[in-house]
């Protein structure tokens, strides 16, 4: 934030040299901006911090479009491509698997987030009304789920018995309600002014009307942030797909990403005879390209939710 520094009064009979207010670079009004070396040092520190964040992104994007020879010479990562090529993106998107996986991830994220928000908001609202039916046992049940997490095998058995193996619903239903998110929302709802809700009730509003016309509009920031939490969770999830999806064409992006990046897949690991293989884009280039593809949707969505983040992330910290 910039502040206006007070201007000196001009002496009579002497021409005014500079009446323009000088700009101060101090962050705090009234505080000295510091000596030039100190400011330079601070700038340098900030620059280093920015580079620490930006350089990996730049390296990933550059490597994804770099020429194979340059990648090999650089030993893996390229900071600036000499002759950019989109071979890796072509290789990834032409087979159909990555684009299909992207569609699956987008679908699961959108549907999952919507369902999670609807169910979480309704549950949190019910739990925030002290006199609601079964309020305490349901709350206890919810809290218990934070302490005792079902293991992999019980979860698998449950999904199998519901007939959801190889179904997209298996990627949504087991993680649809997150107890932590519900409790955060409940805390927020409990701190809404009670008078508003009482007034609505006196005016004859039903619980549904109170929730949709008063509580939700007042809680947009917290619901937005919880929605982002859910969306990122669905987007990043791979383990449920690994367990429940036998058909690789139904895999979400993150599981495909895992086969390329974590398993270092384009290299055979000494177990596969790639005698048959035609030259493919280098592993690093493919890995970088798929990383770029996987972060693009979140990067696109984040600016729209960011304005809610500042308010929303404080919810759990100061209330509850």
């Amino acid at each position, binding site marked *: 934030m910039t502040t206006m520094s007070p201007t000196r009064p001009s002496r009579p009979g002497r021409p005014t040299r500079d009446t323009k207010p000088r700009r101060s670079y101090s962050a705090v009004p009234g505080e000295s901006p510091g000596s030039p070396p100190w400011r330079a040092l601070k700038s340098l520190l900030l620059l280093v911090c920015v580079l620490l964040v930006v350089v990996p992104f730049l390296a990933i994007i550059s490597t994804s479009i770099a020429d*194979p*020879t340059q*990648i*090999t*010479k650089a*030993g*893996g990562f390229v900071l600036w491509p000499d002759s950019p090529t989109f071979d890796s993106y072509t*290789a990834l998107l*032409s*087979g*159909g*698997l990555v684009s*299909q996986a992207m569609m699956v991830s987008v679908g699961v994220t959108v549907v999952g987030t919507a369902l999670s928000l609807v169910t979480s908001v309704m549950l949190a609202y019910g739990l925030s009304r002290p006199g609601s039916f079964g309020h305490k046992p349901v709350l206890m049940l919810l809290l218990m789920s934070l302490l005792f997490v079902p293991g*992999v*095998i019980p979860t*698998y*058995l449950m999904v*199998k018995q519901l007939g959801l*193996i190889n179904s997209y619903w298996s990627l949504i239903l087991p993680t649809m309600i997150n107890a932590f998110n519900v409790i955060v929302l409940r805390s927020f709802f409990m701190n809404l002014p009670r008078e508003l809700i009482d007034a609505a009730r006196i005016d004859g509003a039903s619980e549904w009307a109170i929730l949709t016309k008063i509580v939700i509009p007042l809680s947009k920031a917290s619901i937005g942030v919880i929605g982002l939490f859910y969306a990122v969770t669905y987007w990043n999830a791979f383990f449920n797909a*690994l*367990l429940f999806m*036998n*058909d*690789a*064409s139904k*895999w979400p992006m993150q*599981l*495909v990403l*895992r*086969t*390329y990046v*974590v*398993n*270092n*897949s*384009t*290299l*055979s*690991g*000494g*177990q*596969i*005879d*790639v*005698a*048959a*293989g*035609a*030259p*493919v884009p*280098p*592993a*690093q280039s*493919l890995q970088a390209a798929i990383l770029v593809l996987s972060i693009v949707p979140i990067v696109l969505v984040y600016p729209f939710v960011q304005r809610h983040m500042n308010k929303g992330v404080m919810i759990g910290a100061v209330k509850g």
Partner: protein
Amino acid sequence: MTMQPPLNRRGFLATAAGVGAGLALTGCGDFKPRPAALANANAQLPTYIQYKGVATSMPATQDGVSAGHQHFPADPPKAFPDGPPAKGPDINIMNLIFNPVPPPVEKNVMWQALNKYIGCDINFAITPVNDYPQKFAVTLAGGDLPDAMLMLPPDQNSAATPDMLHALFEDLTPHLSGDNIRDYPFLANIPTDSWRPCVRNGGIYALPMPRPVSGGPLYTRLDLFKKKDLDPNPKTWREFVQLCKDITDPKAHQYALGDPVTTWNLVMQMLGAPNWWREEGGRFTHHFEMEECKQAMDAVNQLKKAGVMHPDAFAVKGKFKEWFGNGQIVMHPDAPVAWNDFYTLYGPVSKGMDIGYMLPPDWDESTRGGQWQGRANYATLIIKKAPKARIKQILRAMNALAAPFGTDGYLLRKYGVQGPDHTLKGPDPIPTPQGTSETYLPTIFATDSPFTLYYPQKPEIVPDQYAFQKEAVKKLIPNPAEALYSATDAKMTKLFFATLDSLRMGIMQGRDSPGEWDGAIKNWRQKAGDKMRAEYEQAWEARSS
């Protein structure tokens, strides 16, 4: 009438604990794993009947050399002249993949052709390799088994127990033992060594996924050695160290070696140390317990101090192939199939790349080096219990997936369909980009034909590959425990190996004192090693009787 007191918190907790314990005990029951002798009882192995349909000047040999071919037959013999061999319902196979996942069947010309060729739809439920043990365990627990599943060796997959095999999977002995395998001639062409690990509980419970027993060479970048006018054929450890020093050129960012673990393996082989376990008169000793282990750690530490190892050797994993490919290291031990990989992946960008091989030199005049024998299988394929006719259909399908080099079945499996998947250069198939991605279909992780030396893009390297195998099999050191089962090894090895491996790396790097090794091994012996040894000794006795 007296009022019953309500359940208080303490009562609730006590009841819950009791119910929980009861459930846990019911779940565990009084299960005891099958004794080692019973789990490792012997069975009659399939008769080996070599396929001789395609002639070559580099034939496979009894002692484990793989056949080599410089060219594909111009007119490939038909594997199944009478038509598709396994007509019937779909076969579902759960297995793993190292490569990116291939396109789904509706977009995969090769997969569609393969289904037509076999006579039924083969559905692969594919899992990335690192996650496979977990998926395997969960699928078993779920009870809804596919028709066939890849089973990793027990030391990589603790769920692969003989009891589980007995309860859920088919004993294939009546179909495959002795001359019964004649019904499946391409499975009969798989060498006997690969069938041994398929035996459990006195029966054949699995199909092999054969790999060459020669193990892999120490690959050398001959082009870079030639530039420095050096001869990469040291006879002893001393000459090897000198060669490493001569070839290292830090200014050019060129070093002799990269991976510390495979370098340790190499030194162990120079010392003639056991390939995991040594068996003498029925008594087993693990190589971690031997003096050679400490000697090899010290030797790697000397190499590091001499500056001949890549500066990031101890800090980086999974980059060693790339370093070798781009010339940052000039020697790299790897699996036999890596030979072709290097040319495919790095040949186009490392101009003049010329790869040679080295066998472990002797340690000195009195201590002769050996070559650790490779695992005869990557893994095995187990088949769910089913009526006899269904088992026969699955075996006929697997027989088709083992069609050997030179046949039309092999060509389809490895190179896809001519046109979309490969073009012909003379008689040799050269893959197209579409073919490369379609042939990632993991048929080799169901079963496969014996390993064949063949590289259509650079046929002149095949005689060198064959020469390596011929030399290697003369000095093989087998692992006597490879085909045996030890419940303790299956359960404990991963746990202990993480600790021991970390300490080994520390000692080689100079971070940890060599003196700590004895304490770690003593602890290993007490908690797992001695029990493993006893189980392997019982297993050895049972298998030998």
